[in-house]
């Protein structure tokens, strides 16, 4: 009797560990479903939109300019931020606000990326905390699933902040 209960408990524990580990691997290396909050990525992603992120391109170092990514916040590793990649290492980026008459440019240092929200007026991003190390990137958002009428892939940057190489 006791043996049976013990066996069942151990079996249940084993399954819990196994599925927990499978879940960890899936969320860490494949992708996850994320609920975004905050106004910084409007109009591309609105408050409480549900999106799917994939983590493969981060591990294969194939993040490109214009991709929307989820990263750990450089000032608080427990919170996540959702921003658009404006420049990769070595790229020239515009550091100042678009409203400023004097444009200041800078180059992104090695191993870093330049992140900005699409809503330039209401976004805390690389313009305030500087370039972000690449290793803080967790995944790339590629599909919006909720609300249903906005289902589909994400649109390109709406405000032309990405500088093209001449």
């Amino acid at each position, binding site marked *: 009797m006791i043996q049976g209960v013990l066996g069942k408990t151990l079996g249940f524990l084993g399954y819990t*560990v*196994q599925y*927990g*580990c*499978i879940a*960890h*691997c899936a969320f*860490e290396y494949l992708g996850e479903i994320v609920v975004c909050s905050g106004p910084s990525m409007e109009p591309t992603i609105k408050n409480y939109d549900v999106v799917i992120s994939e983590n493969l391109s981060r591990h294969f*170092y194939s993040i490109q300019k214009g991709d929307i990514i989820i990263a*750990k*916040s*450089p*000032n*608080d*590793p*427990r919170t996540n931020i959702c921003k658009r990649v404006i420049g990769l290492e070595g790229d020239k980026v515009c550091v100042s606000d678009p409203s400023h008459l004097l444009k200041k440019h800078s180059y992104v*240092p*090695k*191993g*870093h990326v330049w992140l900005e929200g699409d809503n330039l007026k209401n976004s805390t991003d690389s313009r305030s905390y500087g370039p*972000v*190390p*690449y*290793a*803080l990137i967790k995944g790339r958002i590629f599909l919006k699933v909720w609300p249903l009428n906005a289902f589909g892939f994400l649109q390109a940057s709406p405000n032309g902040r990405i500088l093209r190489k001449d």
Partner: protein
Amino acid sequence: MMPIHFTYHPCRSGLRGIFFKFKVMAHGFGRRYFKAFVSGFFVAVPVTVTFLDRVACVARVEGASMQPSLNPEGRLGSDIVLLNRWRIRNYEVHRGDIVSLVSPKNPEQKIIKRVIALEGDIIKTMGYRNKFVRIPGGHVWVEGDHHGHSFDSNSFGPVSLGLLHAHATYILWPPNRWQKLKSFIPPDRNPVEKEDEYLQQ
């Protein structure tokens, strides 16, 4: 559906019958083996990966930046350390801990350094562009024990806690160097206590 009976058929007697039986057996054995392999694979791989990601892993230390705590013999031998990942699950580190982190300049490389100052501390730098630095929130200041031979915060500045990888706790190999890694701050590397010294610059 018609039921199929694998009973001993008269025409399958003799050698042919033996071969038939053998084939059935081999098939069953192969499938069972394959099934066991697949299910074992689906248990072992995720459990191992999760253990290495969340609990602990081992790594070999390369380079002279942490002498004399690690690799004291230089090129002659390199230490293998135990990296405790469970301890830093909440990004809690203390001054003096030896930690491994992803290099901010190269995301493919991990570096091992000693934590010198935590967020809010004011530290006197050794060759950084400012003489005194206040560590911003969510950042730490790391240095190698071998000053001058280490690529550390004195060249790249404070690092974000999100780059933290693990807390190095033991030297595992070579066996004669087996020991617990002590947490200490090198002499005169304590954070600056007086604010006015910082404001003077």
